[in-house]
């Protein structure tokens, strides 16, 4: 009895079952990935408080009141930039368009963060051994 014989001995039901399970799992994986995929969002913090949560997919222009004055940011084509800021160096504006990470304006105390930003650092929800 060799491998070839064993493969030939498998019944039709066997092959259908295996094929079905593999296709079923692959389609579930793709399906769930599409459902649960995190939509990129923009979190805007002013003076330590979260003031806006916006979608990266919608073009938008937002005014944020900071410590010194009003900062204007623009969201376009899944990218973010600072348009105007009352701060002195304008470093935040010089950073230009960003599609990941964050742009921080320290003098005005405005943080624009793309994706998840959590105050308490990284959260652990389970450890298994």
């Amino acid at each position, binding site marked *: 009895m060799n491998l070839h014989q064993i493969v030939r001995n498998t*019944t039709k039901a066997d092959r259908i079952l*295996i094929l079905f*399970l593999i296709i079923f*799992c692959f389609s579930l994986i793709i399906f*769930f990935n599409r459902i649960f995929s995190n939509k990129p969002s923009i979190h805007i913090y002013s003076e330590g408080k979260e003031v806006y949560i916006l979608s990266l997919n919608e073009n938008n222009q937002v005014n944020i009141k900071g410590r010194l004055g009003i900062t204007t940011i623009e969201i376009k084509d899944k990218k973010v930039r600072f348009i105007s800021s009352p701060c002195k160096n304008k470093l935040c504006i010089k950073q230009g368009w960003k599609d990941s990470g964050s742009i921080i304006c320290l003098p005005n105390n405005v943080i624009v963060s793309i994706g998840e930003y959590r105050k308490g650092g990284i959260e652990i929800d*389970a450890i*298994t051994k």
Partner: protein
Amino acid sequence: MTQLQNKYQIALLSAFAIGIHSIENLLPSPIPWLRFGFANIITLIALYIYGFRAAFTVTLIRTFISSLINGTFPGPAYLMSLGGGIAATISMWLIIYLIPHLFSAVGISVIGAFFHNTIQIFIAYLLLIQCLEPVILVSPLIILAGTIAGTINGIVAEFVIANLKNQLKPT
């Protein structure tokens, strides 16, 4: 006499299963609990050659003693192993008993692996995770891996069963 011989066979098969299970635990794996489940080959062989009672006993002995060896006895890992093993044995027996010639050992092994994984995910959900989203995300991956492992196990089991039946025939 047959009773005694049966006990001897069960002990032998259990020893094989425990050995395989323990060695398998030493193999590195990307995710804990993602193993080939080669011990299921022994359950399948016991089921085909000695029947349901022997296979069930072998599964119980195997899960109990290998959890003692691995130091996971009363914990969730033991319950997962036990539940998965029982589910696999019962499901495989039911399929063999109800529709005897529809599946070969390969198909039976895949069915066993599927129920083993499903019950394990369920027990893990109840005892450890209790959060639906990661369970749903990871379960198709686990079942896919289980199907592949089950196919390989089934091929090995078919091989062993064919050889054992040839040996047992003269006696």
